[in-house]
């Protein structure tokens, strides 16, 4: 079964939408606005009765709430219902106390990230659970080694994806050099070039 993202071009590329129990890499060049597509997908899936766990390490969860609201996608109702939750890996990074239920004190501590995701998956309801990782590029940069990050992700994914879960990783293709970007693209079930979505949209 395919789950529509709500983005016509993307759904067409994915032959109907996101596939259950699969991992997706949404990648784009620097300076390309691809976040809006992730927001649109989140909104579509929430309205279809799915649940979202939003792992964030690039900005404060409140700024995501604000940005989504500005686009006309208010997640407050879904947060109240418990079908949209943040896993805050940002606040600790900048030395702030997180107000989120799910949080990690060290973004590079994969065991803690995995445990919090496990807790959130267990806690929340919804037809299917979609885990958004925003962003994989920051995670790799903070850890300093793409290889070990990918290894940890590969180890964690089977457990995360069991039942009907889906994992979506957002990735900016900064100049990592060598084969790193190709290795990253090859580590997921699907790798989608969001620049193409952007071009087709215009």
């Amino acid at each position, binding site marked *: 079964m395919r789950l529509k993202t709500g983005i016509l071009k993307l759904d067409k590329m994915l032959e109907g939408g996101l596939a259950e129990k699969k991992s997706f890499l949404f990648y784009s060049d620097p*300076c390309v606005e691809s976040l809006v597509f992730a927001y649109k997908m989140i909104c579509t899936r929430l309205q279809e009765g799915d649940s979202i766990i939003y792992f964030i390490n*690039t900005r404060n969860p*409140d*700024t995501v709430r*604000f940005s989504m609201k500005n686009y006309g996608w208010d997640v407050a109702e879904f947060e109240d219902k418990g079908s949209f939750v943040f896993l805050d890996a940002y606040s600790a*990074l900048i030395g702030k106390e997180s107000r989120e239920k799910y949080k990690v004190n060290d973004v590079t501590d994969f065991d803690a990230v995995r445990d919090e995701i496990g807790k959130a998956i267990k806690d929340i309801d919804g037809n299917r659970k979609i885990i958004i990782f925003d962003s994989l590029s920051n995670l790799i940069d903070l850890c300093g080694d793409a290889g070990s990050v990918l290894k940890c992700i590969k180890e964690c994914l089977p457990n995360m994806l069991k039942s009907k879960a889906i994992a979506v990783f957002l990735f900016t293709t*900064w100049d990592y050099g060598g084969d790193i970007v190709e290795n990253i693209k090859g580590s997921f079930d699907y790798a989608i070039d969001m620049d193409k979505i952007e071009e087709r949209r215009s």
Partner: protein
Amino acid sequence: MMQIDIPQNSASIVISPPLSGKKEFLFNCIADALEKKEPVIFISTDFSSEDIKKELAEKKLYDESCKGRIRFIDCYSQEAGKCLDDTEDTKRISGPLALNEVSVALAQTEEEISAEPKKHLVIFDSLSTILMFLNSLMIGRFLQVFIAKIKNAGGSVVFTLEDGMHEQKDTVTIEHMMQLIVHMKREGSKIMIRADGIEEYEEWKDLEM
């Protein structure tokens, strides 16, 4: 007005201790650009665009006549919990560590200034905010793309960095990407300046305001 000309199509950095006159230097750069009718894009990580506008207005560098000639990218307000909307001359992004958002906002602002590559000045105040939380490797990757985009769009960029706040290897990584490195210090009420690579500024000199 400037003592040191910012080279066209270049990346420069001002490195100095806190409160040693970086703002004054930046305001000189802005005054110089405005005099040459070049647009300015001010990216701020530590202050809201409203605060920057107030300071610029006090120096008579921001008024009705400047409208559209100075644009702002505010990386501070949302992070500080003020969820303010964008305005005609200001784009607000989630926070200084959302590096791709910074790049996107810059590209959009450059497009708004002109569809064609055109001389303009980008001020980035300050890299220290980012370097406090992210490593120099990560910032290096960001700067590589960021500087190239500005140059391709016909612009020059001036960054600021707090002296003494970061590890030397991090500072050197950043310096390596710059064409001009300006150092500043205060001596009493005087602001002193020197620049690496410019013969006449190898010794400390007064900054003319």
